[in-house]
């Protein structure tokens, strides 16, 4: 069987050094496995960087998602319909004129799972020992169960059921020194003028989230209407699947009557959401830094490899391999090695993210380490990683940078080799 050199019509066949790009790739691939330790190191470096990048973004997005979901389920709602005036200035005087038409539009959207009215107002809570200002939320207890997580985090007593009852966050109850079963005086000044009512504390919410436990005050919407004089609601709260809030809000806004507008959770969070989104953007340089370090490690590994193989390259040049192709081969080695590391990193990284999406590993760690620092956010102890395909692109930056650096440094070094001098170099 003719060998490669004599195969083509009896004429001397082109050697791998003279054949096309495919042969060059093969040559680079083979070179990788000729130097296994170096290649293993290169793969490990790129795999580590890829895994770190995937973890970094998966964790970062999971962390933000946990905040947004906590905000949507414990503090606000995934989507709300309210008036623009109330969105700017949450005073009951800016309540919705009525709720039926808005509710009808919301329920017609396929992604909407539940709609319930809320009536919020500022008020004063008085116990025999002290008084405390609070944002009071009048709710329909049954409707609220469909979209809020608050009923599931009762620390003591029970959730709201009927008029005449009030539910407080555990820290607020402690501040007021009021216990389940005791009465609290509630003062409100709104459309109905100054009004006051006595409500019995039936339950205490203990979510472990400072902003919830310190501020939550729930009363029956009938009591809220009596206190404010508002007959409708300040907002309709809407439940949609996580991640669809903005899309549903946009769709509803095309069909809602003029008086009302829908706001997704990010719109509701306002500056807080903007700040968190800005934080994510500021994290991009950190992600790039991972890629940069990995690419530098790949490049330095290649530089060492080129120095070790100077004699081999001299032989190749003397056999007719031109400098350009030799440089290309070195660059291909960098790319192939990086791709191998990238593949290993992707498998490990996505495996890790999927596991951390299924198992709440981060929540307890974070709440223990940074609980005090994160008090202002509705961040619970359940923090799951997010898994997105776009992280592949972020991690691929490593391979791109490795190829670029390889072309700039080791490949240029190879391109400048003088065959005679190179062949004299010691191994």
């Amino acid at each position, binding site marked *: 069987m003719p060998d490669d050199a004599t195969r083509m019509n009896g004429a001397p066949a082109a050697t791998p050094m003279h054949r096309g790009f495919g042969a060059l790739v093969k040559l680079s691939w083979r070179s990788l496995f000729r130097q296994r330790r170096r290649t293993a190191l290169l793969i490990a470096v790129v795999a580590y960087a890829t895994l770190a990048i995937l973890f970094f973004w998966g964790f970062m997005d999971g962390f933000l998602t946990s905040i947004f979901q906590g905000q949507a389920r414990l503090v606000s709602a995934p989507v709300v319909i309210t008036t623009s005036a109330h969105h700017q200035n949450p005073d009951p005087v800016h309540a919705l004129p009525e709720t039926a038409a808005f509710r009808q539009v919301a329920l017609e959207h396929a992604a909407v799972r539940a709609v319930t009215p809320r009536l919020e107002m500022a008020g004063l809570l008085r116990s025999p020992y002290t008084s405390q200002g609070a944002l009071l939320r009048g709710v329909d207890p049954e409707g609220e169960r469909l979209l809020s997580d608050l009923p599931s985090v009762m620390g003591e007593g029970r959730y709201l059921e009927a008029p*005449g009852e009030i539910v407080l966050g555990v820290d607020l109850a402690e501040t007021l020194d009021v216990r389940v079963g005791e009465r609290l005086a509630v003062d409100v000044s709104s459309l109905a003028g100054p009004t006051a009512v*006595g409500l019995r504390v039936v339950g205490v919410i203990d979510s472990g989230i400072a902003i919830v436990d310190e501020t939550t005050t729930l009363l029956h919407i009938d009591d809220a209407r009596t206190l404010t004089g508002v007959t409708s609601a300040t907002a309709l709260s809407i439940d949609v699947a996580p991640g669809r809030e903005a899309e549903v809000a946009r769709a509803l806004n095309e069909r809602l009557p003029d008086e009302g507008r829908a706001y997704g959770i990010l719109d509701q969070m306002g500056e807080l959401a903007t700040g968190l989104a800005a934080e994510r953007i500021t994290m991009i340089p950190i992600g790039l830094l991972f890629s940069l370090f990995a690419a530098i490690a790949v490049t330095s590994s290649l530089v060492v490899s080129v120095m070790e193989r100077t004699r081999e390259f001299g032989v190749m040049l003397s056999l007719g391999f031109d400098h350009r192709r030799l440089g290309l081969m070195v660059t291909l080695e960098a790319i192939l090695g990086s791709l191998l590391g990238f593949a290993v990193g992707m498998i490990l990284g996505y495996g890790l993210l999927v596991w951390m999406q299924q198992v709440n590993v981060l929540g307890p760690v974070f709440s223990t380490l940074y609980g005090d620092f994160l008090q202002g956010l509705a961040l619970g102890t359940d923090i799951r990683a997010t898994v997105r395909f776009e992280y592949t692109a972020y991690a691929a930056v490593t391979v791109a940078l490795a190829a670029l650096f390889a072309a700039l440094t080791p490949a240029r070094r190879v391109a400048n080799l003088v065959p005679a001098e190179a062949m004299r170099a010691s191994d």
Partner: protein
Amino acid sequence: MLQARPSTPAPRRLVSSLLVVLASALAAAQAVPDDADAILDAMVENLRGGGQTATLDMTVERDGTSTTYVLEMISDGTERSLTRVLAPPREAGQAFLVDGTDLFLYAPRLGRALRLPPSGRSDGFLGSDLSYDDLAGDEVRDDYVASVHERTDTQVVLSLVPREGAATPYGELRFTASVPDLAPLELTYFDQRDTPVKRLTLSDFDVLDDGRSVPTRFEVVDLTEGGGRTVATWRDATFGVTPPDACFTLQALERGCSW
């Protein structure tokens, strides 16, 4: 010649004395109604003292410091009153107008009147422990169900339990009055764990022409930890007056009222 009138034998004198005491006791017992609500009404009327003008010296003791205010008060004896701060200079010019459930504050530095929330009636004013409800007694009559807790020859104690939905944080009030005049002596506020948290003690009564005994010294003690003490004393008080309606307007709040 006048004969000496035979002296009344000792047993007869004793019987007569007993009859007098018994008659007095019966009279007193008849003066005090059996119905707790009627007793409460009488006590509140005595507490209010009817239409009046007065100058009050109010001393607030809290956290080891003591501040004395001089207040000028006009009340129609029902649900309206106008109070102006005369001293100390730092607070002088502030004024409070109570008109039913409405409470307004005039802040001279702002040059305008502000409407305060309903809680302002039950909160101590000027940082004191004394509230408008303490002075007016409306809250005890409107928000509580009264029953006679204890009754002796000299005192009656009413137990006041909040009505369902009443805007009060207290568990019970005990209102003590002397018998037979039903002059209010003491009002103790209990929390919902049967612990007294505030006590209003009334003394130095003026007896009006119509027989009412009106207290002119109010002492309020906050019985909670770190609580303060406030003593308000009436001087130059004129009872039985009928201030004009113009004294209970926002204009009067800002500019004062004299008639």
